[in-house]
Each structure stands twice: as C-alpha cells, then as structure tokens.
C-alpha cells in the first residue's frame, strides 16, 4: 500500500472527486494561486482552472454562504476555511442556514456542501489561532461532522463528504497535515459512522478525537510497556453520525473509559460521550468515565504554557492509571 502525507491524501480526494463530477468545485482563501495555506490544494488550479478552483476574498461568512446557495441550486461546493478559528465568522451561515435549510423548508432543498478546515494548537499561534471546536459543530443537528486522524481516513472520508447530500463539517488538523500513513490505492469513499479500533486491549477503552487519536495510541503503547495495561484505542472518525456501538462494545469489555480531546472541557465531546456511556452502559462501568481535555483557558502563546494547555501522552497515561487506583 502506498504511503503518503495526510495533506496529499486530501489533495487526492479533491482531485478524484473533481474529476468524477463536474459540479464539484472548491473555493477558499488562497487555495488557488497560493496553492493553499497548508498546500492541500496544491496543483489543483493548474489542473482544473479558475472556474473550479476559486480564490476568494477574506469574507468567511459569505464564502460559506455562497457555498450554501450554490449547493441549494445544484452544485457541490467544497469550501476551505483557512483554519477553524475563522469559522467563527461564518457561524450564521453554518448554523442558521446550512444546517437548517433542508429541515426548515420541509425537505425541498438540499445543501451538499463540505466545509473543510484544520484545527489545533501547538504552533505558538496564541488564543485566536489555536482552537479545537469540534464540540461546537457536533452540537448542531443538521450537520455531519468528520474528524479524520490518518491519511487513509482523510481521503476516504473527504470523498464520502463530497458525495454526501448533507452539509459536512470536515475538521482536519494542522499537526496531522505532514504525518504519513498508508492509503489504499483506488480506495473509494469511506462510510461515515464507522469507528476505527486503532489498538485492541482489554483493560481500558480510550477514545481519541482528531489528533488525540494519535496521542491516545502512543499513550497506549507506553501503558503496555511500562504499566502492563492493555488499552483499547478507538477513533470515532466521525462525530455525527457517531458509531456509539463500537465504543459501548469496548466499554462493556474493559469496564473503563477515558475520552481524550484537545478542545475545552465544558460542553465538550468528552462530556457528551461520558453522558452517552453512562446512560447506555452504566452497569458495565467499574469507574467513572474520565476525560482528558485541553485546559479551560484561551490558548497562551508562550511555549511551556501552550504545551501545558493541551493533552499529551503523559496526561492520557495518568488518567488511565487513575481508574485503577483503588484496585
């Protein structure tokens, strides 16, 4: 199987879907001539021309709104927001329009729109450029939310997102863009709502979201080597729809769960998953569901502070060990 970087996998997905369907076009800030702030759209302008690879002004709310309008009228736009931080400027079009239109007009209109954007901290970009906001989009009925953590998932899920008739919030990660992974040749779209079990284990279930799936997997290796604990690592891959069954099956086996996310703790993905697990697998739990999250602060700039503000392997290891304290 060929290996490639996460960003190359995304690029392939875009290229293949644009080749397959004339209605698919991409637009965003600096995606054409500049080839993308993270080079995801490299080479696409040259290949497809400026009708289908459209550089936009810096107008996030209207970029997304133009995507929604063109999708309602029959096109299949893929919008890139340079980072998830700027999606906050587009929330009206995402929440009041993209998510609601199919429902509020009685099913008459469809919004086959993909909004791609990377999230995450670790690059010393400070409070306005380091958000992890998947919980915010997960909150909204009418949206699908994907959080791929591997190159293969990035490609398969993006292809699926483009082919889907619902608005999809496609959350990439700045750290992951340069990570390599195996990607099946001629791989088709991946199904939303199918979690990946990254590592099997019988002692504790660790659910990692977005980049934290990678962090969780590394932590699990250390837990096995240094603490003789076998963690089962699950990457949900999509948060809406969510493959809750795979998570519950694992919890029923391990009787313990830790959820790892980079975003803030209050109202986070972990809070949501903890509620679902205790609602539906309460009798199987030997310990409270634990959460490992980003610190409850705006992201600081200073390097030591920043590193202290989001989860690392050590945080995951400590959280897992804490579940066994009383044994």
């Amino acid at each position, binding site marked *: 199987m060929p290996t490639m970087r996460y960003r190359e996998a995304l690029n392939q997905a875009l290229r293949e879907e644009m080749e397959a369907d004339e209605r698919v076009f991409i637009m965003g800030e600096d995606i054409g001539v500049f080839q993308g702030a993270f080079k995801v759209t490299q080479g696409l302008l040259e290949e497809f021309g400026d009708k289908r690879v459209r550089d936009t002004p810096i107008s996030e709310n209207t970029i997304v709104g*133009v995507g929604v309008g063109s999708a309602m009228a029959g096109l299949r736009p893929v919008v890139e927001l340079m980072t998830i931080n700027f999606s906050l400027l587009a929330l009206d079009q995402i929440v009041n*329009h993209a998510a609601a239109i199919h429902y509020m007009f009685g*099913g*008459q209109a469809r919004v086959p729109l993909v909004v791609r954007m990377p999230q995450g901290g670790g690059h010393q970009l400070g409070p306005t450029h380091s958000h992890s906001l998947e919980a915010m989009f997960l909150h909204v009925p009418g949206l699908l939310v994907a959080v791929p953590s591997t190159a293969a998932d990035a490609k398969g899920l993006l292809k699926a997102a483009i082919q889907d*008739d619902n608005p999809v919030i496609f959350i990439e990660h700045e750290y992951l863009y340069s990570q390599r992974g195996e990607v099946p040749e001629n791989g088709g779209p991946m199904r939303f709502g199918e979690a990946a079990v990254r590592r099997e284990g019988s002692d504790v279930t660790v659910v990692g979201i977005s980049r934290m799936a990678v962090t969780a997997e590394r932590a699990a290796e250390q837990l096995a080597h240094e603490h003789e604990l076998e963690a089962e690592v699950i990457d949900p891959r999509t948060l809406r729809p969510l493959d809750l069954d795979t998570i519950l099956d694992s919890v029923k086996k391990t009787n313990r769960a830790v959820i790892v996310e980079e975003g803030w703790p209050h109202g986070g993905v972990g809070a949501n998953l903890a509620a679902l697990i205790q609602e539906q697998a309460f009798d199987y739990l030997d310990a409270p569901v634990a959460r490992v999250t980003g610190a409850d602060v705006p992201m600081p700039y200073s390097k030591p502070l920043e590193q202290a503000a989001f989860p690392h392997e050590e945080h995951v290891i400590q959280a897992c060990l804490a579940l066994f304290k009383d044994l």
Partner: protein
Amino acid sequence: MAQEAAVSREKSTGNGTADGAGRQHSLPDKDVCVSVLAKMMLIRRFEERAGEMYAKAKIGGFLHLCIGEEATVVGSTQAMRDGDYLLSTYREHGQAIARGTPPSAVMAELFGRVDGCSKGRGGSMHLFDMERRFLGGYGIVGGNLPLSTGVALRCDYEGTDDAVVCMFGDGATNQGTFGESMNMAALWKLPVVFMVINNQFGMGTALERHSAVTDLSKKAEGYGVPGSKCDGMDVLDVHSATTEALRKARDDRQPQLLEAVTYRFRGHSMADPEEYRTKDEVEEWRRRDPIASFSKRLVDEGLLSDDDLEQMDKEALSTVDDAVQFADNSPFPDLDSLYDDLYVLGEQVKSGPWWSVDERSPEPHRGEEEREAGRVPHELAEAGAAYAGVGEAQERKRRQRQAEENSGEGEQAADPRDVEGGGD
C-alpha cells in the same frame, strides 16, 4: 425630529408624488395592468387577513406584513423570468404569492399545517417553493445575500442565462454580508440584482438613525456594484427599473443594487406599538398607497371602471377566504415527522448507527424511521405536543386587545377589510 426625518425621506425618494405615482411611464397592455393590479390586491387582502388570523392566535410567532410595499413586490417579480431565482427576507408572503405559490399553501404555512409551502417547519419567516424557484424567506437580517450570490454563481457556473433577485431591507445594508456579497458578486461578475426594499426603518430605527449614507443606492458603488433607485410606491417604475437591472445583470454580467423607496404602513411585526414614527408621517405615505394610485390611474385612463375594481377586490377576498379555509382544514404535521428531513438519507447516513439522542428516549432517533422507533418516543412526543394548547386563550385575548388598540389609533374602520382598500 421624526417629522423632519419624514420630510427628508420624502425628498430622498426623488420621483413620485403624493397624489398618484407612475405618471412618467406609459401603461402596458390592459391584461398586464389587470394582472399586476390583481396581484397587488390579492397580496393586500392576504396580509390583512393574516393580521386578523394572528389576532385570533391562528398564527404563532412573528408576523411581518408588507402592506404598503405591494408595488415593490409585484413590480419587481413581474420583471423576472420563470427561470430566475428569488430569495427574500422574513417579510415575504407577498413575494411567494407574486411568484405563484398558491395563497392557500402560504396561509397553511402561517397556520403551521402540513400543507404549508414548507410543511409547517418554517412558518411566516421561512416560506419556500423550489418548483417556482422561490428559494426562501430568511429570518436572519443579511443572511440571504451570500446565499443569493451562491445561487448566482451556480447560474454562471452552469452557463445558464438565469438570474437572481435578492431582496432585503434597508437595515440589512449595515450587515457585513452586504459588503462581502457585493464584492464577491462584482469580482466574479455574477448575474444578481440586489434589491434593497427601503421601507425607511430597520425594525424601529429610522434610516437616518441607522445608516450614515441614506442614499442606499450609492452604498455598493465602492464595491463595484452600480446602484439605481426607483419609486417603490409605483409598480410601473419598479417594474421598469428591475427590468433594466436584470438586463444588466444577466446580459452584461454586472451585478446591480436597486433601491426601491417605499414604506410599510403597518408596524415591523404585529407586536409593534410604533412609537418611533408619527401618525402624520404614516398618513403622508398612505396618501401614496400603491394600489389606490395605480387603480386610480387605470380608471382615469379608461382601462377599468369602478365596478371592475370592486369585482377584482371581491375576487381577491374570495381567494383569501379559500386560503383560510384550506389552511384551517389542513392537519398539523404528524408528530412522528419531528425528525423527518433532518438529514438527506444517503448511503453515508442511512447505515450510520446514530444521529441524534435526546431525552425523549434512550434510543437513537433516525428521522424517517422514527415511526418504527416504538411506543416510547411516540408517547413522549404526544406528551410534548399536548402543551400546544396551553396559554392559547390568554394569548388570543392579548393579541385581540393589541389589535383593538392598534385599530383605535390608526385604523378607524370597523371592518378591517375597508382599511387600505384597493379603491381611491
């Protein structure tokens, strides 16, 4: 203060006089005149009746009426082709009717019934009719400008000669999406006419108090979108200006901003004590009633008789009667349809194991499959829906009291049908 504002607004309209508009355009053929007048009359009667139904609490939420703005609505839509798209604001009953959506489907939507043009999901602010390319009323001020730009992008992308008309109020010109959309439409040379319906108020804030530039037609020039202005009380002037704007947008690929200067005779919504304007100001504008003035001209020029007008008004009333009856007879949406149309059921989500979990049951809800989801969700839905009648009697009384107060001040006629009538 308000008086001065009224005077300056009067000046700013440029054309149009208090005693009847439209003298600068020659009349089109009789059948066109009749059709245009009939549409305006129908919209007026529809809106009046909607107001009555609101007072009776048959309609919930907000209700924004376009009484006074009929010439703007009908004159502009009359200039559109069938293939053109229209996107409007939350004051859009008239727009839907003008584009051909049956008044019965509009009234049923206001009543929250399943035969409403949005199946009772949207209500007054969110009418929709895909078949007639009326792509919606939108509840967020300025929200439809990016959408319209996107629809225009589709027209351009597919190489069609369809165009888009995007309507919004004077208040929306202050939103960020106004400048963003103007810029993008001009940059990409999209076939869209941005039509600002300047009814002088962003809710209760007068134009002079919300916009530093009060000549709204100039407000997009800096973005590369040329502007023009028409007399929104004169159906022929609106038609002529929209025709020209659409031509430039469609043929020259040059988006346009068209300002229609008009006035809403009623409050912003039904819950509006109208303390921000004087009765004199309203009276001054009412003298330019777009329906009365157009009717008068048709009679003056011998195209119609007073009897004809009366007959046309009767027909409008009868259509509205039918619409109310239709809406009353239409059932409320099935409770089991609560989760319908949340998602399009494609491969990606059909097999997805989980969409939505809420307090109604520990089981997942899957939209269209809710019906098979078992007894518990259904019973909980029924338990919730039972609250629909709670407080209805008090609300009805409150609204009726409000309606009486309003009519005591502004509209003296005992029969509301006599208010703002079609005749002079």
